[in-house]
């Protein structure tokens, strides 16, 4: 329930902030009432009202049921690390290129989710890389990120 409250409160706060941003759009108004701020304001007002209503209803439920804060669920650490890995992968994809960043990401994620089967990791890395290379680079002629400097040279050498 705490998570639910934080989530709806988060939406409420973000909506309020965006409404303030939308008000600035009104300064440029050249179309009387229906300027660029017209529609976003309608959407954000509804969003503020509904998320506030949801937060209040969660708070009432929480107080009534007196749920203890100890709603611990497993897997959060694992998913948080996998999110960090994915964000890191996207961050390093540009400088390292597909050919270097992707195997590192696959190895990291597989060590996280199946640490007991390390032996299959090289095979999986190879399988995924070859599959993506064939589908995107060879069949669809989509250029894959090549990276900078030496990584760019490696990508070119491998025909990406």
């Amino acid at each position, binding site marked *: 329930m705490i998570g639910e409250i934080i989530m709806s409160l988060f939406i409420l706060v973000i909506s309020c902030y965006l409404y303030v941003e939308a008000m600035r759009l009104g300064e440029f108004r050249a179309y009387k009432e229906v300027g*660029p701020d017209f529609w976003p304001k309608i959407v954000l007002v509804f969003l503020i009202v509904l998320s506030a209503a949801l937060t209040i209803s969660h708070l009432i439920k929480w107080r009534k049921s007196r749920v203890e804060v100890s709603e611990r669920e497993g897997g959060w650490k694992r998913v948080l690390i996998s999110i960090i890995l994915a964000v890191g992968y996207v961050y390093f994809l540009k400088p390292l290129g597909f050919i270097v960043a992707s195997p590192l990401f696959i190895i990291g994620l597989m060590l996280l989710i199946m640490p007991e089967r390390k032996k299959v990791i090289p095979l999986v890395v190879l399988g995924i890389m070859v599959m993506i290379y064939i589908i995107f680079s060879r069949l669809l002629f989509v250029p894959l990120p090549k990276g900078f400097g030496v990584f760019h040279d490696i990508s070119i050498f491998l025909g990406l």
Partner: protein
Amino acid sequence: MFYHWTQGLFAAIEPYNLFIIVIGSSLGIMAGAIPGISGTMALALAVPITYVMDSATAILLLVSLYASSVYAGSISGILFRTPGAPEGVAATLDGHAMAKKGLAGEALGVDIFSSVTGGLFGTVMLALIAPQLAKVALEFGPSEYFALAVLGLSVVSSFGTKNELKALISALVGLFVATVGIDKISGFNRFTFGTTTLLGGINFIPVIIGIFAVAEVFNRIRERREMGGIRAKAKAKLPSLKLINRLKGLLLRSSLIGTFIGILPGVGATTGAFVGLSEAVRWSKHPEKFGTGIPEGIAAPEAANNAACSGAMVPLLTLGIPGSAGTAIMLGAFLIHGLKPGPLLFMQQPTLVYTIFVGMFLANLSIIILAKLFIRYFSKVIELPYNILGPGIIIFCVVGTFAIRNSFGDIWIMIIFAIVGFFMEKYDYPLAPIILGIVLGPIAEENLRQAMIISGNNPMVLISSPLSATLIILSVLSLFSPQLRKLWARRKGAKGQS
């Protein structure tokens, strides 16, 4: 009309297009059958592959994938009691009961036959209804289009959620996301926060890939759900003429129900399957036998869900209003290929429309052959554990997103929405309304503002024509339909007691 039909037929049976239909159906069957990869996810993953195709081929790939994934959800349900997709849940009850009796082959055969019958029936209805509806829609002006977009959005309250408020919030998040970028009417930048990446708006495909594919991988990593180690040894046996004769009335009724449910926006194939099943129980002389392993318990939901899948194409093609996550993704694919679904599509691209009709027909027919083949080799595919599929899916999503326009900004948008989607799903905010919001937002905004400017800012213009007024009333009814249903049930209960 006949000319367009023949043109559509010739376009659909071109060797390359036939090959694409077979590929689409095969991918759809695989995606639908493997628990963890839904038809919607497969559609989102397939969109980047269509960039290099011409528009007709791309749409054929997606419609065949869509139609076959709805069928395949029940395969693993029948064999392992683990439906691969929500659409297959209703057929699992009797299907798995038959499999336990040693009749897995017969159950799979009835499943294939009913799905194909329902799909073909739905496609015929789509081809009959859609052109007529498109003619009516040609008369629409900005007020009507705004009302139509509102009607499309109003269905989110019945999107299979426990909390209607959350569904509405999801839709509003989507509506807001659609406002980011340069405003088409005034030319001002909105919510771009000084970045050039957001100037062109938030591309709809990275959002879909993020919330439907990558978020699901995160979800499964958290729950550590695994699918490995399941083996199947079964061979589908198509039903005998005697059994077909016994099922024919039920198949027709379920197909009709399914088509109608599919046409209703927001009520998809899963609801179609359950309504089909419950009506079969209601009309049966032996309702007590349902759930014990009878072919009727598979035929009814499977005919209904495949018919609903074809029915759902009616509002998409004729009005440009998607009624489900699957059709919303398809709308995105139409837009990527420079096509705008709606009544004008029937005038400007009639050959394409009829190619889609014929393509859907062929896709449903191909299920008979492909499903039998697939079931034979099913064990090989289902053996792939999610631990291997997961990293593969994320890499595929990243590269697929990059392929849209070689933009790293799009990959960031995809990953941000994957995180947003993960947390929203965790706290029971349905994800499909976000997509509806993003798709319908620009239609609603542009037409609302146009209507207001034309009328000199008079809001009454929105209900000035009988059609727009009717659509607005329907939207309000649709928005409050869960409450109205509860009220109706309470009244009925009170009457029953007195």
